[in-house]
């Protein structure tokens, strides 16, 4: 029994015009099939425009696919509005500003995340018992934020904000955690800290997660399975011993090979 099952997913974007002679149609995701078991931690790599973010956005319900089906825990969620599936899906975005509300305080942000997927009542937004819980959670981040519950989030650094966003995405133990290059806009040291936190949180809560990264070393060292996307397709899917034996060089080779094949195909077509 798979927890997430994606079948025959396709998604194109139509822009007014494009230089590639394709009537402004841009295929972002092409025939993607993907199944995840509970507890899988999948990393995804691929060059810019490969369709990684689009795939995550379709899973989260930001876009509906042109065709294909998505099952979460056996339930067809393909056409479920984003806000109605958000109870089971936590997300962290690349830009730390996107995952938090800057004008609101740390505790207010956490309180909103604590009610993920639940109705918003006219009850007090942050209670005393919430605060206690938040302090405990924030201690885990090891950034001293537990002493700054009433600071507006806009005062935090990018790394602090991203750590908070990660906590907000994971604190209610969603069925699925989607991380889209969530360390890419941070300096290397901060990125490493956020990545360690991610691994810790995912492991402790036994979360099922998909993490897009541009760092090939992270892609192989973190998680249990690695996908490579190219032009909307999943062109590599490795796990287990095959993955354990892989190096960054192997990944680069695979990548160069796909690109090369494509080039050859193009040349044949043109000839």
């Amino acid at each position: 029994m798979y927890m997430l099952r994606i079948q025959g997913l396709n998604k194109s974007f139509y822009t007014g015009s494009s230089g590639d002679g394709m009537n402004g149609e841009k295929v972002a995701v092409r025939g993607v099939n993907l199944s995840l078991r509970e507890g899988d931690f999948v990393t995804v790599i691929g060059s810019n425009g490969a369709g990684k973010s689009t795939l995550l956005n379709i899973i989260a319900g930001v876009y509906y696919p042109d065709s294909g089906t998505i099952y979460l825990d056996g339930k067809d969620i393909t056409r479920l509005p984003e806000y109605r599936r958000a109870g089971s899906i936590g997300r962290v975005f690349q830009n730390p500003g996107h995952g938090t509300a800057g004008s609101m305080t740390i505790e207010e942000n956490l309180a909103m995340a604590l009610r993920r997927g639940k109705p918003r009542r006219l009850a007090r937004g942050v209670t005393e018992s919430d605060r206690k819980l938040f302090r405990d959670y924030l201690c885990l981040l090891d950034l001293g934020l537990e002493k700054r519950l009433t600071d507006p989030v806009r005062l935090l650094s990018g790394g602090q904000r991203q750590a908070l966003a990660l906590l907000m995405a994971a604190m209610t133990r969603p069925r699925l955690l989607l991380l889209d290059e969530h360390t890419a806009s941070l300096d290397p040291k901060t990125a490493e800290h956020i990545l360690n936190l991610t691994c810790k949180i995912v492991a402790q809560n036994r979360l099922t997660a998909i993490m897009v990264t541009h760092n090939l070393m992270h892609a192989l060292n973190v998680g249990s399975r690695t996908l490579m996307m190219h032009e909307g397709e999943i062109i590599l899917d490795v796990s287990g011993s095959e993955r354990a034996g892989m190096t960054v060089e192997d990944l680069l080779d695979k990548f160069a090979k796909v690109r090369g094949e494509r080039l050859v195909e193009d040349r044949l077509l043109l000839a």
Partner: protein
Amino acid sequence: MSPTVGMLRAALEQGLVYGILAIGVYLTFRVLDFPDLTVDGSFPLGGAVAATLIVAGWNPFLATALAAVFGYVAGITTGVLNTKLRISGLLSGILTMTALYSINLRIMGRSNVPLLRQDTVLTLIEGLGIPEPVRALVLFFVVVAVFVLVVSAFLHTEFGLALRATGDNERMIRSLGVDTDTMKIVGLGISNALVAFSGALVAQFQGFTDVGMGIGMVVAGLASVIIGEVVVPPRTVVRAVTGAVAGSVVYRLVIAFALRAGFAPTDLKLVTAAMVVIALAAPGTTFAPLVKRYLGLGSGRAAIAGVAGSGEEPGKRAGANQEAR
């Protein structure tokens, strides 16, 4: 009573009663980051509903409450146009406002309804023993204080947090499972309920309602909100809501002084618009820090803190407000 004291009292009365409108404008422009122009129609709607019902013999308190309900409906109309029909926020408000002009005339049956010799909320509280010269002042102060407390408390509820997050970071709050369309619709409804309530009280206070009395109300409300941010730097929600009312009072004082300085009453909308333009045009900032620096309000330290504290956010929002969505 000297003319100056009378002038100050009148400005204070108006500042408080229009302060309810300013709270409504604060909810859309600042909390929801939605430039809502419905206000110019929902304000006279409040007056029209209250005046018509009072003339028909209804209890003025009930008539005022019903005016707020009508304002709520006007607000959710704009919200539905924007979120469900995907019409830009600015245009949605203009459409509702325009439709309301006809609706208000229908409700009133003519363009002006006098309330002379009618019972109003002001005549009904005569028995409470508040001396005449300050009766309206006391009533408006109490009403506005209640609204400041209730709206501030509301913005700290689970629903209120989601509403604020919808204006701050829509993508994030949607990813937490909130239907942001509903948030905008309800937020616009509450805002225009406050505006219509204000219109209903103003009609009873001035003794008539006029179909044209909404012209320029959005801009007046916005001026109040911006002035409020200068007078009471909005470090917390309670301060921001209080600031909207304080800004409304200062705005009415400025208007009173402009009249004394020789401006014709018909010039006041130009004066108001100019005030808002100056506030929004200051690059990357509202004029809070500028005013502080040039008027030398507060210590130098506070002035710098003001620049650092309010420099980024309100400026960014002022820019965002001008965009059609």
